[in-house]
């Protein structure tokens, strides 16, 4: 009796480890995460507009239907990227996600403080290799460090009313992400 009770307690303790291990493994084994959903339709290092979400069809879950969204699936293995996003009328934001959909950096038009949001995306290594003489601390050069080699940049422009959606989409159409 005692023996089985001990085994039960031991099993439960082991279960705690199984639980923690499986939680940590979920992002790496998920096949329907946002990155995997976007990968087939989003070529690397190009800004792709996402179709407006509908009940039948959406690029990722929990998309905000009030926003026009475009994504750039990036791969920094060939070098750093430059992202240029013209600001739309009402509200524009740029969010950077790792390969496992963790939002590690986000900025909106007001924080960026000008007509065009310009960001340089690179890995920590690439940043360290920047030439010393280049004035990397200049305020007009915003550098974002990516913790992973690949990931997603989501650019969102708000259409405060449905009638403004074409304008929001048009603003995103000239967004660019390419090798700098």
């Amino acid at each position, binding site marked *: 009796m005692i023996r*089985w009770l001990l*085994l*039960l307690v*031991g*099993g*439960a*303790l*082991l*279960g*705690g*480890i*199984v*639980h*923690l*291990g*499986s*939680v*940590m493994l*979920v*992002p790496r084994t*998920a096949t*329907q*995460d*946002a990155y995997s*959903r976007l990968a087939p339709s989003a070529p690397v290092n190009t800004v792709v507009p996402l179709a407006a*979400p*509908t*009940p*039948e069809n*959406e690029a*990722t*879950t*929990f998309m*905000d*239907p*009030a*926003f026009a969204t475009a994504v750039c699936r990036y791969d920094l293995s060939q070098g750093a990227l430059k992202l240029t996003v013209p600001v739309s009328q*009402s*509200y524009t*934001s740029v*969010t950077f*996600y790792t390969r*496992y*959909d*963790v*939002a*590690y*950096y*986000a*900025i*909106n038009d*007001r*924080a960026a403080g000008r007509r065009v949001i310009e960001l340089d995306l690179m890995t920590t290594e690439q940043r360290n290799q920047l030439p010393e003489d280049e004035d990397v601390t200049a305020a007009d050069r915003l550098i974002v460090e990516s*913790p992973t080699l690949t990931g*997603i940049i*989501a650019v*969102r422009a*708000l259409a*405060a*009313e449905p009638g403004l959606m074409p304008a929001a989409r048009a603003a995103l159409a000239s967004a660019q992400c390419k090798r700098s």
Partner: protein
Amino acid sequence: MRLLFGSLFAFLVAAAVGLGATYLTLTRGAAFGTMSIGAWTARPKSGTADADPYARAEIARAGRLPTGIGDGVAFTAQTDDAGKPLDGRCEVVVSGVTPAARFWTMTLYTVDGSLVANSLNRYGFTSEEIVRHADGSFDMTISPRASSGNWLPTGGIEHYLLMLRFYDTAVGVSARTGREVPMPSVTTRSCP
């Protein structure tokens, strides 16, 4: 033989407890740093690089791109203020005021995060569209049948959730407790 059965038993218990707990936390939702105000919950930390393993697992499983903290904060309500799950066959009223933000949007989703089909193709409201009272507060009626004012159709589905996203706001960055953040109330008025 006893050793074999004993360890098999222990491993079975471990698998059941471990995977069961993982399943429960991912479907019911568990993460550190949850901010609860009335029926609304938000996990501002989920939109940062410091997201904990539970938040990361939930994000991957749900297949969503979370709202980054520099962009805004997303509040979810799955029940009304009394704790009753939101039912698309009932009339639910969301009323009150919202915390300071440049814009906010309210969206109705299925529990899996899809939009809900309806004849108006209306899936939510933005802060610019909503009709307010003279004092700045608003009432939003969420029901299967059309109603005057700010009507959000449910399509008659059984369970839904509401997501209230605030863009360009200090909520979640500076507010530590829910007390200084006024959130609208969620009340079930009538059920068939």
